[in-house]
């Protein structure tokens, strides 16, 4: 029962938030739906943290419901802590940020359901529940991207997102059917270790990697991402970039783990795709600065593609050569990236809202008039660029370390892989640093000079993420505490 308590809290919260949202409208009160959503996020997070220690100490907590079993494993704890942590902050931020929007009785339930889906991805112990959780995460996200329906940008981005992601989901579903065809079952317990290489399974893997890869922004399947992540309301952008794409990748990973030991080369393929993804993401983010009007959120969106590349690289080499540091780096990067990219998007949202422009050039000098926001965004970007002592450095470092530990297996190729990854890290400086520079240049623009830091609620939300970004850089152990059991669990499954 405990295993699904956070999930239940979120789902109940979704219903309640909808009900309170209607009441809010009917009685002209404010913040009822937001308060409910925030309360359920907070409650779920507290329960999750409390359960986390049990899981780390004792092991997976199972709960059987309606013929299927949900299991709170270390992976699920890791994923829920990140998702609930970021979700709570985004919810807090939205209280103030979304307060002028219409349709909040839909916004908060959708947000809660999306996070519930992410939790489900962690809890599933069979592929069907995994897939359904994935859809539970995906469908609210389509609606949330297009939440501001009156803006053309949102509608177009939502349309592209839903068509591409929908196709991806179906491809993955087809892949599952092929697995079922060979094995006759979809539960992890029965599948792991029994899979053997065959053409059917290779085909299944192609569909699964491509299908979930659309959601995980694997190049060249990433083309929806810059549109969707830059058009969504900033809180949602933070969620999407921070955790939804990573959750998509973890879905892919969990499915692919079924094949561990079958020698199908999943890890190698992920490594290749990772290098492609990070290069494409960085190049496209870089080229935004060559554009006449670089769009801040679009740069951040492409940077997410690049960062997904790092995550894939870590886990890819981890799977391919059984390197612990790779897994640890990839997973830790999921966590640090969630917080730092979340922070960057929240700051971007504030800048866009207070100054009234999406374009970096028109934000000239914003860091001087909006001291906290500017500082937070600068640190978030530096962290993304992998500058110590911020969290991004620690995790990217582990990824690089993992990728070059493959030297013992593939010699010079490992150096090449690491060199490509690291050159990407330099390239990324080419778009992060100019943003910081622009933020602190002097400005004569009245709108910028008059802009001020946002309401206390939003500042608190950003400050939480900022603190996490700094603390995880100085004291990575805090985050690795959640990562290590996951890697241990994977090792037990034969992945390492």
């Amino acid at each position, binding site marked *: 029962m405990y295993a699904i308590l956070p999930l239940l809290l979120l789902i109940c919260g979704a219903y309640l938030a909808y009900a309170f949202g209607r009441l809010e409208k009917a009685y002209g009160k404010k913040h009822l739906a937001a308060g409910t959503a925030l309360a359920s996020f907070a409650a779920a997070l507290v329960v999750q943290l409390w359960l986390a220690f049990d899981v780390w100490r004792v092991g997976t907590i199972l709960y059987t419901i309606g013929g299927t079993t949900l299991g709170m494993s270390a992976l699920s704890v890791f994923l829920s802590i990140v998702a609930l942590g970021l979700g709570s902050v985004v919810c807090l931020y939205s209280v103030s940020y979304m307060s002028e929007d219409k349709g909040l009785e839909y916004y908060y339930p959708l947000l809660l359901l999306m996070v519930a889906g992410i939790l489900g991805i962690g809890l599933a112990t069979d592929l*069907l529940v995994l897939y359904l959780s994935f859809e539970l995460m995906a469908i609210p996200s389509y609606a949330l991207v297009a939440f501001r329906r009156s803006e053309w940008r949102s509608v*177009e981005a939502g349309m592209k997102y839903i068509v591409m992601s929908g196709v991806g989901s179906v491809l993955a579903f087809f892949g599952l*059917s092929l697995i079922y065809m060979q094995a006759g079952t979809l539960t992890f317990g029965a599948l792991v270790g029994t899979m053997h290489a065959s053409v059917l399974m290779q085909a299944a893997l192609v569909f699964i990697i491509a299908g979930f890869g659309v959601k995980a922004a694997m190049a060249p399947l990433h083309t929806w991402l810059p549109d969707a992540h830059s058009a969504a309301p900033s809180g949602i952008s933070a969620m999407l970039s921070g955790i939804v794409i990573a959750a998509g990748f973890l879905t892919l990973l969990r499915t692919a783990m079924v094949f561990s030991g079958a020698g199908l080369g999943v890890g190698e393929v992920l490594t290749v795709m990772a290098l492609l993804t990070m290069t494409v993401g960085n190049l496209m983010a870089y080229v935004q600065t060559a554009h006449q009007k670089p769009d801040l959120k679009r740069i951040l969106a492409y940077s997410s593609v690049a960062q997904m590349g790092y995550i894939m690289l870590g886990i890819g080499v981890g799977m391919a050569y059984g390197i612990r540091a790779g897994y640890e780096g990839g997973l830790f990067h999921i966590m640090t990236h969630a917080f730092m990219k979340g922070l960057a998007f929240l700051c971007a949202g504030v800048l866009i809202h207070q100054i009234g422009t999406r374009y970096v050039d028109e934000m000239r000098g914003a860091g001087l008039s909006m001291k906290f926001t500017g500082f937070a965004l600068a640190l978030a970007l530096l962290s993304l660029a992998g500058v110590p002592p911020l969290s991004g450095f620690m995790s990217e470092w582990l990824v690089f370390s993992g990728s070059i530990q493959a030297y013992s297996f593939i010699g010079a190729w490992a150096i090449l892989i690491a060199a490509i990854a690291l050159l990407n890290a330099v390239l990324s400086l080419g778009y992060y640093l100019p943003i910081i520079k622009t933020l602190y240049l002097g400005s004569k623009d009245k709108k910028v000079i008059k802009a001020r830091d946002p309401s206390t609620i939003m500042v608190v939300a950003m400050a939480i993420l900022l603190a996490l970004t700094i603390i995880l850089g100085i004291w990575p152990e805090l985050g690795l505490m959640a990562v290590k059991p996951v890697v241990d669990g994977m090792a037990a499954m034969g992945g390492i």
Partner: protein
Amino acid sequence: MAVEVYLGFAIAMLFLGIYCVMTKKNVIKSAIGISVMVKGGCLSFLATGGGTAQVAVVMIIVVDAILAAVLLSLAVNVYRQTGKLDFESLKQLRG
């Protein structure tokens, strides 16, 4: 019929769907394309039989219905703002 035949049909439907989304410029047609793909997936699941397959198919049909609903509601918005249901108008965000 043998499983391979069902599988063949399923793959054919899948690629038909992808082809449709790749080439058709109409929003509704792309929705149809996705639907065809989903049916392909269902078919390949059913080909093997078994309890889980039926559960999976029922579930995916529900998911598909929701997906189609969201997609069509977006299509309504596209139509409201452009007066067309054409991909050509969905090209403002690029690069």
